[in-house]
């Protein structure tokens, strides 16, 4: 019988051994990676992940897109399911890598496997893999219509794309010393699917002595110039309330199982969310959001977004430290309001 999910969270020892990597494969040019009981290799089409309980084969482009988000977000909040089988759970300092642990069929068969790593070690392993396995011309942050392919034998790299850093405001974009607006000069051209979005900035009339105290900027322009998809920035913080807007196109490469409540505010266009049970993956709901729609994602589900046109989504997060423990213990209900 496999271990109860709660015991995994509480009692797993942390593997602090660094990863290893092979020399480039003489045939396809890619390195192979290993950390703990897991190994990773890629060929021209697929990534192949092995654990002591089995092998999992996934499309290489989907795999790289998922890993890009996991790396860029430092394992994010809670569960980052690369697909229905593999993924990571963030314990903030340590992180679980799993195969089948949050899939009811694997768990029933006892073929699930989890190992806990020091976050920095697993991040180093993933970063190195991502750099080696990403070919020139493939940007894992881009929508499929905007980028080339990751398939085929080793062909250069794309470190500029893989090293992209999202912009995180400390208080509010445009305040002195804080994040800046996005412009052509800063390397943020208007995205092809937002060519009709107004580029006018607000007028700021500060009285002498109050420059830098009042502030405003065009958020829709900011989002129209986002060069990446499914990768939130932070534009304003009120205490622990963070506005994390993002531009979305095609499919969120991961299924996010949050360890706290998050909210979505659809600013433009439309996204459909496929929602499943966080532990088993069983289907629960489809949430279709059009411009002006507001919806929470309860703390007990996983969600994956589908955006047919590039759209503007305001993701709203609560940064209060330790929230994951308060939801896990049941102190906080999974839905943030009742009626």
């Amino acid at each position, binding site marked *: 019988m496999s271990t109860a999910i709660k015991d995994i969270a509480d009692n797993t020892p942390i593997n602090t051994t660094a990863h290893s990597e092979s020399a480039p494969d003489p045939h396809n040019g890619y390195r192979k990676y290993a950390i703990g009981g897991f190994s990773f290799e890629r060929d021209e089409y697929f990534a192949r992940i092995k654990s002591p309980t089995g092998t999992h084969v996934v499309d290489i482009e989907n795999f790289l897109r998922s890993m890009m988000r996991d790396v860029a977000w430092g394992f994010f909040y809670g569960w980052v399911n690369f697909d229905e089988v593999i993924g990571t759970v963030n314990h903030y300092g340590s992180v679980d890598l799993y195969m089948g642990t949050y899939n009811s069929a694997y768990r029933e068969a006892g073929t699930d496997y989890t190992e806990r790593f020091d976050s920095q070690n697993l991040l180093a392993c993933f970063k190195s893999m991502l750099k080696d396995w990403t070919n020139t011309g493939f940007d894992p942050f881009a929508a499929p219509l905007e980028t080339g392919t990751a398939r085929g034998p080793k062909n250069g790299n794309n470190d500029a794309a893989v090293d992209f850093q999202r912009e995180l405001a400390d208080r*509010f974009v445009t*305040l002195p010393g804080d994040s800046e607006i996005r412009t052509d000069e800063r390397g943020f051209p208007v995205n092809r*699917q*937002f*060519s*009709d979005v*107004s580029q*006018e900035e607000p*007028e700021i*009339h*500060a*009285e002498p002595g*109050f420059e830098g*105290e*009042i*502030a*405003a900027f065009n958020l*829709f*322009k900011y989002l129209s110039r986002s060069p990446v998809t499914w990768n939130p920035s932070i*534009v*304003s*913080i*009120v205490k*622990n*309330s963070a506005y994390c807007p993002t531009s979305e196109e095609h499919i969120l490469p991961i299924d996010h199982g949050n360890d706290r409540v998050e*909210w979505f*505010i*659809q*600013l*433009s*266009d439309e996204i*459909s969310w496929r929602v*499943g*049970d966080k532990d088993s993956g*069983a289907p*629960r*709901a*489809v*949430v*279709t*959001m*059009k*411009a*002006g*729609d*507001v*919806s*929470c994602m*309860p703390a007990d*589900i996983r969600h994956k977004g589908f955006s047919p046109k590039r759209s*503007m989504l*305001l993701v709203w*997060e*609560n940064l*209060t430290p330790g929230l994951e423990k308060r939801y896990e213990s049941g102190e*906080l209900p*999974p839905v*943030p*309001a009742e*009626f």
Partner: protein
Amino acid sequence: MDEQTVFASIDNYTKGGVEITGKDEPWRYLFSNMFEVTSNSQPWERIVVAKNLEFTIEATRAEGESPWYTCAHDETALLMQGAMEVHFIKPGDTSALPPEDKEGAVRLSGEPQGAKMGHIVASRGHLTLLPAGAAYQFRADGLAMILIQSVLGDESIEKWAEICQH
């Protein structure tokens, strides 16, 4: 190709919704549409459309001049429809201000005494900082709609059963 980015307004919105595919209930998604909410509210009412512990996002129908407000912490105002000005005053009499730990916006009885800090002229999509300790007033010539990032307070109105799919 000229793209057609879809923004909505109080007079022109289409609502999505929650469809259940397994074990779940629609109310748990607290699904609403900010334009529908503000089409049914009075000017300057702050209807909570999103809440995460004490933090809120409040949808406000904006028409004409708002009361003056102040707040002990930052807030922000995202204009989702129309045009507006936001005027700021640094109150001179700090005893009239809410205590530092007071959460949410506080409505003032009128325009406060103090130094004019300036004003902002905003249109759709513009995000304005309402800095902690300043008094502010919204002015909208026509119909406008503002989303306010704040903390649950005296001005916040919760009416989930009325606004959410269930």
